[in-house]
């Protein structure tokens, strides 16, 4: 109880409240601009969080990412261009509703069910995390190795491309994480005599390069999206209660699927939306209506992607294993602010954890009024031509990367990773898998090498402890899954 009161005090600070509001507006605007994803919004925020108090720093990330995932629905609905990848799954459906003259209903559903999904996801975080923390206290390096490895494998499983390319992308990330002296022996590796590389490659310049610079590079080659026709909106929330009652079961299914996908390391909001939309169609009583402007899939997938956002924090807070690319960034911020992820976070820093839950709830509640304002302002925001937004992004990439260490070398890294991300994306290599490899590389290696030293180079102990045996089995299954997929795909083809 004392912790909870302390948490209220932490959140009620002026700087935290300002941070939440400012980050919300920022998230709404960036999320609504096509091509600027929620991950990019978060990555560009990190340099700012350096200079904020710990709670305010985390608040900006939570608020900005939640808002960006919702507001990605806006251009999807009005222009048929998803603002963030997480909205791509149901963009056609939402646009079909707009064409039927139900733009308010579609946007309202996006907003209303995003907020519900976010709150249900937060509740799952509140309930699940402490229980798992209890269990995680008994974990040794063996379990941590398998967990981290499983996280990497999940990231490759859910990628919507060839699993082999995803695994290759993950290996590239792991190789990047090898650079520097931060290995169990403290030997400089792959530094090529460059002193700037001795400290290793920080994830932030890599993230900014891969998610922001490569996006600007893509914009250089593609045509400008069409301008938004000006329109007046009726009531946004009218009819949402009716939808909630009518599609109660799909909504809960979306929430639960979102939570499960969020908890899986490496799989995030975009995957949750795709899976939920497909499930909604599969189990619907009227599947023939899907694609013609039917709100059911919107309800389920809209709830799902926001639910996954909160539950993605479960593995991040407990094990330091990111649930998706956004929490991969958040973990870096947690470390920087002295809130090192781990099961003890829930016992020793309980008030900070309660504060984090509170921020999630607040962000999802203020999402409704701010979201309505954003929808009404959308025609003005979306009028901003790309040629005025993208230059500012390039500048922020440079300054933001510089601010992470007052070092121009980071700016160079941003440019390099921008090129790498651009080439990888173009050739079907999922960049998210590489990012997770970079973020988790040293964790996988440290636990692997420490375990090997402990076991005197024997691999048997990796499978002897009960929990690590289960995790090993799951990892093996994740590894073999692509083979099964390949096999199944091949079977029906001979005819």
């Amino acid at each position, binding site marked *: 109880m004392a912790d909870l009161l302390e948490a209220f005090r932490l959140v009620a600070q002026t700087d935290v409240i300002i941070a939440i509001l400012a980050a919300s507006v920022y998230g709404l605007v960036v999320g609504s601009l096509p091509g600027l994803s929620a991950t990019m919004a978060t990555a560009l925020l990190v*340099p*700012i969080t*350096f*200079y904020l108090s710990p709670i305010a720093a985390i608040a900006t990330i939570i608020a900005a990412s939640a808002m960006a995932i919702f507001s990605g629905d806006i251009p999807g609905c009005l222009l048929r261009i998803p603002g963030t990848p997480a909205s791509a799954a149901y963009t056609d459906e939402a646009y079909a509703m707009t064409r039927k003259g139900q733009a308010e209903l579609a946007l309202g559903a996006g907003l209303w069910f995003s907020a519900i999904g976010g709150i249900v996801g937060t509740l799952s975080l509140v309930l699940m995390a402490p229980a798992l923390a209890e269990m995680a206290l008994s974990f040794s390096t063996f379990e941590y190795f398998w967990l981290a490895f499983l996280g990497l494998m999940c990231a490759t499983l859910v990628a919507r*491309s*060839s699993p*082999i*390319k995803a695994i*290759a992308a993950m*290996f*590239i990330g*792991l*190789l990047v994480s*090898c650079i520097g002296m931060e290995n*169990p022996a403290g030997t400089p*590796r*792959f530094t090529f005599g460059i002193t700037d590389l001795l400290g290793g490659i920080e994830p932030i310049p890599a993230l900014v390069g891969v998610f922001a*610079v490569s996006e*600007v*590079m*893509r*914009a*250089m*080659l593609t045509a*400008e999206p069409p301008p938004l026709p000006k329109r007046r909106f009726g009531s946004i929330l009218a009819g949402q209660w009716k939808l909630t009652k009518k599609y109660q079961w799909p909504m809960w299914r979306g929430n639960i699927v979102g939570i499960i996908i969020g908890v899986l390391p490496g799989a995030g909001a975009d995957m949750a939306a795709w899976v939920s939309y497909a499930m909604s169609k599969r189990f619907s009583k009227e599947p023939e209506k899907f694609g013609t402007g039917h709100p059911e899939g919107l309800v389920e997938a809209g709830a799902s992607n926001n639910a996954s956002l909160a539950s993605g924090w479960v593995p991040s807070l407990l094990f330091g294993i990111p649930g998706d690319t956004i929490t991969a960034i958040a973990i870096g911020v947690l470390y920087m602010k002295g809130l090192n992820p781990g099961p003890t976070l829930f016992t020793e820093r309980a008030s900070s954890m309660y504060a984090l839950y509170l921020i999630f709830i607040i962000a999802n509640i203020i999402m409704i009024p701010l979201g309505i304002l954003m929808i009404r302002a959308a025609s003005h925001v979306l009028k901003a*031509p*790309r*040629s*005025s937004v*993208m*230059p*500012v992004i*390039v*500048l922020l990439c*440079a*300054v933001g990367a*510089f*601010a992470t260490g*007052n070092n*121009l070398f980071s*700016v*160079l890294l*941003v*440019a390099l990773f*921008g*090129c790498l991300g*651009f*080439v990888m994306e*173009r*050739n*079907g290599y999922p960049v998210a898998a590489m990012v997770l490899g970079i973020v988790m590389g040293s964790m996988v290696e440290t636990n692997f*090498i420490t375990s*090997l*030293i402990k076991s*005197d*180079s024997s691999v048997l102990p990796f499978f002897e402890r009960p929990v690590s045996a289960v995790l090993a089995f799951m990892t093996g299954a994740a590894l073999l899954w*692509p083979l099964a*997929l*390949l096999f199944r*795909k091949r079977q029906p083809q001979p005819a």
Partner: protein
Amino acid sequence: MQLSDRVTGAVIATVGVAAAWAGSRLPGVPGQDVGPSVFPMIIGGGMLLCGVLIALGVGSSLEVPEDPEETPRPWFHGLRALLPPALLLFYVLTVDRLGFLITAAAVVGVTSLALGARLRLALPLAVLAPLFVHVVFVKLLRVPLPDGLMAAPW
């Protein structure tokens, strides 16, 4: 830059071999079997395997087909994509000498013009965006951005 799976697979396999070879030459830790060389060698081996599989086209049937490219463009059109990283390189090389405001104005202005903006938009943007970023990062966040030839008016 669309490359065939053969090329990208071969590149990945080559990098993998190089990583494994360079890793194997790292000095070990006296008295221990495992050292800094284990992890790069595993990664290198994995990349070699993946690279070969990709080059052979295994798993390509699972890929979501790409959207068809729009109208065919001359080859140098693709080079436009290199502009943002080139501008970042320009920033790294000149910011200390020219100062933040001038370098940033050049970066913003060129990007804006390259994306098809008129001078009427690009010029004010090139003046205002650096000033705004300067206020946020130098005044509020205390990041030491270099003054160079032109110091900010505050």
